């Protein structure tokens, strides 16, 4: 297949630019976050992150190089294979260490819960395209998609990875809202959701309950579970307007912060670069989200629209939950900040989602044009 010139002409350079800037900020911030921790011992986390970003960019190119409609035919097989991996991780993880979220592939620890997020978006987009109901979905219409969401969500909750299960449910919730649900149904779901909370509480593990309790009142246990939230808030707050300067954050260099190169990477940034730095990063993320929604809106078919919307919601949720978590407005659930937190699985699934977004963006014009069938299939 020859590469259509229009694909290159329509390539979303803006999106790529924003992604590269955010990834660079992430690497720079990781350099600082691990400066004192891994300083002398030669374990260069930020170098590893650069490798992940490069691998992620390759995955991004791979996921934009063919027509996104192809995802439709692979969505269900991919979904069930991923479901199988979630079971595998549960069984093997129990056997090896009592609890484990990944499958070790030697060079890479594969987290099936991470890929499930992207695959679920594809599956839901396809489902809603094929079963469109113009005047809104009722509760009965939502049974099948609810099953599609709950099967992986329960498996992930069992790992136990509360944060990822939470994101999966929220993500599909947003997509349900997007496809339009009858008001009556929304009310019904909300009421039963509230009623189900005590039941969920009953099934939670102790440490998960503690996190929620701690979130409600961190000062009750300032040196125990609440310690991390308080220290993170101190880090963010003490950054003030201009920040303490690169490598000069006392909270991060003194290692008061927990997981400061993964989940709490944003506190390091906020401490060292202040409100200005946080503002720049969050505005970049906002540009990403709004531009993504623009892509969804401009796509010329229902599937592209749903897919793009799903991907944007996924990124949006991770951003909001992570920043909310480190600034103390949401409980600590272990969600990484896309491209800022260290981690191969997170970088790669983020890059694939962004690749899908670019895929939809660059193919929005050629869909109606003559001969598109040959070019895209």
């Amino acid at each position, binding site marked *: 297949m020859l590469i259509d010139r229009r694909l290159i002409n329509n390539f979303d350079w803006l999106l790529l630019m924003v992604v590269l800037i955010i990834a660079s900020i992430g690497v720079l911030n990781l350099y600082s976050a691990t400066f*004192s921790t891994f300083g*002398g011992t030669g374990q260069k986390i930020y170098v590893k992150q650069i490798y992940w970003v490069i691998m992620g960019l390759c995955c991004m190119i791979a996921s934009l190089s063919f027509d996104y*409609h192809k995802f*439709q035919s692979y969505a269900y097989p991919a979904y069930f294979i991923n479901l199988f991996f979630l079971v595998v991780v549960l069984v093997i993880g129990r056997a090896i260490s009592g609890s484990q979220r990944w499958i070790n592939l030697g060079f890479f620890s594969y987290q099936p819960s991470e890929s499930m997020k992207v695959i679920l978006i594809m599956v839901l987009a396809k489902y809603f*395209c*094929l079963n*469109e109901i113009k005047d809104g979905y009722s509760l009965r219409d939502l049974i099948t998609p609810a099953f599609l969401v709950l099967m992986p969500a329960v498996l992930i909750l069992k790992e136990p990875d509360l944060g990822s299960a939470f994101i999966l449910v929220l993500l599909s919730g*947003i997509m349900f809202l*997007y496809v*339009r649900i009858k008001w009556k149904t929304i009310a019904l779901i909300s009421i039963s959701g509230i009623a189900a909370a005590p039941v969920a509480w009953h099934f939670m593990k102790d440490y998960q309950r503690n996190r929620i309790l701690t979130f409600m009142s961190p000062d009750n246990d300032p*040196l125990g579970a609440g310690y991390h939230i308080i*220290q993170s*808030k*101190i*880090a*963010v*707050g*003490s*950054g*003030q*307007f201009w920040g303490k300067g690169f490598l000069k954050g*006392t*909270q991060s*260099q*003194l*290692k*008061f912060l927990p997981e400061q190169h993964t989940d709490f990477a944003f506190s390091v940034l*906020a*401490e060292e670069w*202040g*409100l200005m730095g*946080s*503002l720049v990063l*969050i505005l970049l*993320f*906002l540009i990403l*989200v*709004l531009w993504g*929604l623009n892509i*969804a*809106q*401009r796509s*010329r*078919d*229902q*599937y592209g*629209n749903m897919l793009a*919307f799903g991907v944007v919601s996924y990124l*949006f949720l991770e*951003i*909001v939950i992570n*920043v*909310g978590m480190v*600034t103390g*407005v949401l409980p600590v659930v272990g969600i990484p900040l896309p491209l800022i937190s260290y981690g191969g699985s997170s970088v790669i699934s983020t890059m694939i989602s962004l690749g899908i977004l670019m895929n939809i963006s660059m193919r929005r014009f050629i*869909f109606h044009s003559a001969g598109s069938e040959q070019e895209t299939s």
Partner: protein
Amino acid sequence: MKHSDLLDTYDPEEHRLRISIFAISMAVVVLLLLVHLWYLQIIKGQEYKHLSENNRVRFLDVLPARGLILDRNGILLADNRPSYNLAVTLEDVPDPDALVANLSKILDTPATLLEERINKARNVPFKSYRIKSDIQWDELAKIETNKLILPGVSIEIEPRRNYVLKSAASHMIGYLGEITLPQLKSGRYTINKPGDQVGKSGIEKEWQVSLNGQRGQRQIEVDAAGRELKELSHQDPTPGSNLYLTIDIRLQMVAEEALRGNAGAIVAMDPRNGSILAMASSPAFDQNVFVRGLTSGEWKDLVNRSDHPLENRAIQGQYPPGSTFKIITAIAGLEKGVITPDTRLSCSGSYALGNGVYRCWRKGGHGSINLHRAIVDSCDVYFYKVGQKLGVDNIATYARDLGLGQVTGINLANEKPGLVPDREWKLRRFKESWQKGETLPVAIGQGFDLATPLQMAQVISAMANKGIIYKPTVVAQIEKVGGGGVTKVAPEVLRHIDASPRHIEAVRNGLLWVVEGGTGTRAKIPGIKVAGKTGTAQVIKIGKTRLKLQQLPYKYRDHAWFVAFAPYDSPEIAVSVLMEHAGHGGSTAGPIAKRVIEAFLALKNNSKEWDQTLQTLLKNYTEDPGDLANQFREARSHVD
């Protein structure tokens, strides 16, 4: 295709509104996050900034107390004393130059030296860095009183090793030193961090993991000058396990005293289980010097001294075993059937083979004698002939069976294997085939044979217990501190030697008469039946006549051996004595073996007559004997 169908029903305009609603909602949520950030960083920023400046919660490691080392009677050999170290946290020092000036005055140390250390502290931001280790009491007092003018300075207390009886059993116990980078990377020291003191030799090294313990952690709050305000949390360290050794330190001291002034080694072993009762190597060294830290000059002196004080000769010294090896040749000859206990062979004072003439130590010869007589008089020609009939490979087989040519597996670092020569070894080593004449010296423990004093203790032990080779042990029990219980180290039988009880008895009886009326009478103890064997190991081959000891330069003088066990009928102790360049085994090493056996029996019977001797000995090991003399008197084994 499906997606063309979808296309027909798709209405972008209808989605435009919905997208806009979501776009606005998402932007509002993000805006709310920004508002929250603004609240944290601007409105409350000053407050949090203040908190972060006072947020001087520090995590401090609490080093575990290293396990104690005690002898079999529970007498303390190694414990820990507090050491006060001066440390500086650079971030808490407003004016480093002023600090250097003040410290230099207080400690009476050149400012340049302190400056150098403080500059190194820059590599460990926000952490206290040690400027001076193990400061003296008066220095400590001065620092405490001047604390106000020394911001950022802290005193860290850490446990330091203290060897109670300096230089006692120093080779066996070993010493500590700062962990090295290769050690850290080796993966054997997972619980240790840079700067830790770890075992560098002996038991301290081999039992490092048991002795070390687990570090604890303190979370403390300090003020702006780095002074501790209060402790926030505390996780106690787990002390290392205490080790009860198999040695009796009193016997050890007697053995060391017997060697004083001579290079050599003594190993005393319980032939019933392989426990080491004493292991002395001379010259010795004071381990406390290593704790204090050696200057490079002191270290070079220790390493380069010609008498190698750091070497544990008991396990690392490899010497020709001399006539003590005849025990092995005798067993091999009997087992291979080349002789019976009654076989008579004649000795004319020398033995000619090919072009060579091999001499007996007695010029006039022993005449026609049987095996018993040959052992008692240590006749060389008799064993030349036995060796000749056996061939070197048969001798080697039995030498190995009795434990030579391989490490015994004692839990002490750097044990040497010695050497048992055979045809294959010669070919491999020299690319030459074995010469007939070379078998003869091997049969009497000269030539290529090499053994350590520990190996010879194992050989004589196997004679004492009638054929059992035990793995020598130095640790009797391991006691976990804090009710963790006691683990006893069980005796381990390595093998039963391949020899019939009748043949072992024939050799044993010969050994008894060596002391009763042969070459080893100097080891005779009234009222006790002692069995033994002398050995005189030639260092170099000298002409036809043997020169008198005093006529030879020191380094060419013979090594003296004596191996013995007692009491003959139910042996409780086996001893191997080696004295470098001390001449004839029977006359120099024999009395020493006797003294060790005597001391052992007296201590066992709580005999009073040694009290005075031990008290005198104690003065060599400590300036402040305290109640050690009492402990010595009342020592009762914790081990059995």
